[in-house]
C-alpha cells in the first residue's frame, strides 16, 4: 500500500539519535574526559541545562519529603513537552521503544508468525492508572524510590554506562530481556499498561495540543490504523485523540485516505 505521509522515518531517526546520545555519552565521558553532556534519560545534562525525568524527580521529592530546586527545575522541560505534545518521550525518544521496534522488525524479517495483537485485554488498559499511584505508594512505604532502579530507559542507559566504565553489566538489566520476551505474547504490553512513567506523561498530556484527529467523512473504515497502532487503539473510532495515544504517527502514515492527521489546537 502506498503510504500517504512519512512520519515514521523521522520518528525512527529521532529514536536512533536518542540512543546514539546515550551510547556516545559514556564513551565521551570515559575516554575523552569531556563532561559537557552527562547522564541518560533519568537525568541528562547539556552543559548547565539539566533535565530530570518527571517520575524519577517526583519519586525523589515524595520519598525524601524534600524539594531540591535543581531537581524540580529539571522536571519543567519534560513536563512541558508532555503537556503540549503528549507521551512523545515514549514514542520518539525512549530507547526501549527503539529496542521493541527492532524486535518488531526482526519478527517481520524472520517472516514467522503474525505479530501478537496489541488489542489483547488480558491486562486492561486502565491498569496504567493503577501502576502510577501503586508505584509511588510502595516507594513511599519502602522509603526508597523504585522506578529509579527499574525504569527501562534508565536501565538501558545504565547498562551502556556500565559496559563502558566497568566492562560489566548490572544484573537488573535482565528486566530488559523480560520486557523483550513479553513482546512475544503481547505488543507493547509494558508501555501500554504497566509503565508508571508512561502513565505520568499520559496524564500530563491529557489536554495536549498536538493530537491525531480523525476526519470521519474521509475514513473508509479499512481498519488499517487499528492493526498498526502499537498501543492497540482504534484510531478509526477517534481513539487516537484519547489520553492513551502517544502520538507516534504510525496510524497517520498508514491511513490510505488521509482521514487521520496531526492537528495542533
Amino acid at each position, binding site marked *: 500500500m502506498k503510504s500517504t505521509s512519512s512520519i515514521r522515518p523521522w520518528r525512527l531517526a529521532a529514536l536512533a539519535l536518542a540512543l546514539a546520545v546515550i551510547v556516545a*555519552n*559514556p564513551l565521551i*565521558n*570515559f575516554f575523552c*574526559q569531556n*563532561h559537557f553532556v*552527562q*547522564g*541518560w534519560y*533519568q*537525568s*541528562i*545534562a547539556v552543559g548547565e541545562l*539539566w533535565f*530530570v*525525568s518527571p517520575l*524519577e*524527580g517526583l*519519586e*525523589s521529592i515524595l*520519598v*525524601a*519529603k*524534600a524539594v*531540591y530546586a*535543581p*531537581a524540580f527545575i*529539571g522536571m519543567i522541560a519534560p513536563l512541558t513537552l508532555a503537556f503540549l505534545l503528549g507521551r512523545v518521550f515514549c514514542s520518539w525518544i525512549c530507547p526501549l521503544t527503539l529496542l521493541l521496534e527492532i524486535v518488531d522488525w526482526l519478527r517481520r524479517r524472520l517472516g514467522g508468525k503474525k505479530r501478537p495483537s496489541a488489542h489483547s485485554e488480558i491486562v486492561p488498559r486502565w491498569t496504567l492508572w493503577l501502576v502510577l499511584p501503586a508505584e509511588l505508594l510502595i516507594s513511599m512505604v*519502602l*522509603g*526508597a*524510590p523504585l522506578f*529509579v*532502579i527499574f525504569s527501562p530507559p*534508565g536501565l538501558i*542507559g*545504565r547498562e551502556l*554506562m*556500565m559496559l563502558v*566504565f*566497568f566492562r560489566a553489566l*548490572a*544484573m*537488573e538489566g535482565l528486566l530488559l530481556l523480560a520486557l523483550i520476551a513479553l513482546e512475544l505474547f503481547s505488543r507493547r504490553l509494558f508501555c501500554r499498561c504497566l509503565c508508571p512513567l508512561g502513565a505520568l506523561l499520559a496524564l500530563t498530556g491529557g489536554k495536549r495540543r498536538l493530537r491525531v484527529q480523525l476526519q470521519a467523512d474521509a475514513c473508509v473504515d479499512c481498519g488499517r490504523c487499528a492493526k498498526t497502532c502499537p498501543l492497540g487503539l482504534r484510531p478509526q473510532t477517534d481513539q487516537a485523540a484519547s489520553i492513551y495515544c502517544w502520538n507516534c504517527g504510525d496510524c497517520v502514515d498508514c491511513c490510505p485516505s488521509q482521514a487521520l492527521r496531526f492537528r495542533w489546537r
Partner: protein
Amino acid sequence: MKRRDTLSLILGAALATWLAAPGAAWATAGRWFSPIRRNRLRPPGAVAEAQFLARCIRCGRCLEVCPYHAIVMLDIRHALHAGTPLIAVENIPCYLCMKCVAVCPTGSLRPIGQKETRMGLAVIDHYSCLAWRGDTLCRTCYDKCPFANVAIRLEQLRPVIDEGACVGCGLCVNACPITVAEDGGKAINIEPVYAGNAA
C-alpha cells in the same frame, strides 16, 4: 487423590514461602543493610544514608564526571541501594576534585567544598601501623594526606588524626602499605561515622 492435593498444597506453600521470604527480606534489606561501611563510602557531600537512598535517582552523573573513576555504581545485589554511587577507597580514593557534587540533580550530594567534605573519619589501628608498632619510620599516610599537618600530624614520628579536619577522602588508606590479614582492612581505615545509622 485427596492426599495428593494436600501434598501439593504443602509443597506449594513451602515453595511460596521459600520464594517470598527472601523476597520480603530483600525488599526491606535495603533500608537496614546499607553498603556503607568501613572504606566503602558515599561521594563527597552525601546526605545521611537513609535520605540518600530516598533522594538519589541513580542517574550516574556523579560517576560519569569522576576523572579518577573512583565512583562505582552498585547493582541489584545491593537491593534498594542498586544504582547508587560508592567509593571503595582502598581501590581508588577520592581526590576531592568536587566535580560530582556540582552535577548532582537531586541534592543527594550537596554542593560543598573540599574542607566541608565528611565522607568519614580516618582511624589508625595502632596494633598494625608500622610507625605505632615502632617497626619502621613509615609516614606514608602523612605524606599522602591532602591536608598534611592539619588532618594528619606526626607526633613523635607517629601519625595522629585530627577529627576536626579529616575529610575521609581515603588517600591515606589507599597508600597504606599494611593490609591486616584478618579483615582485609588497612592499618588506617575510613569509618563512615557521619553517614547516620548506616552500618
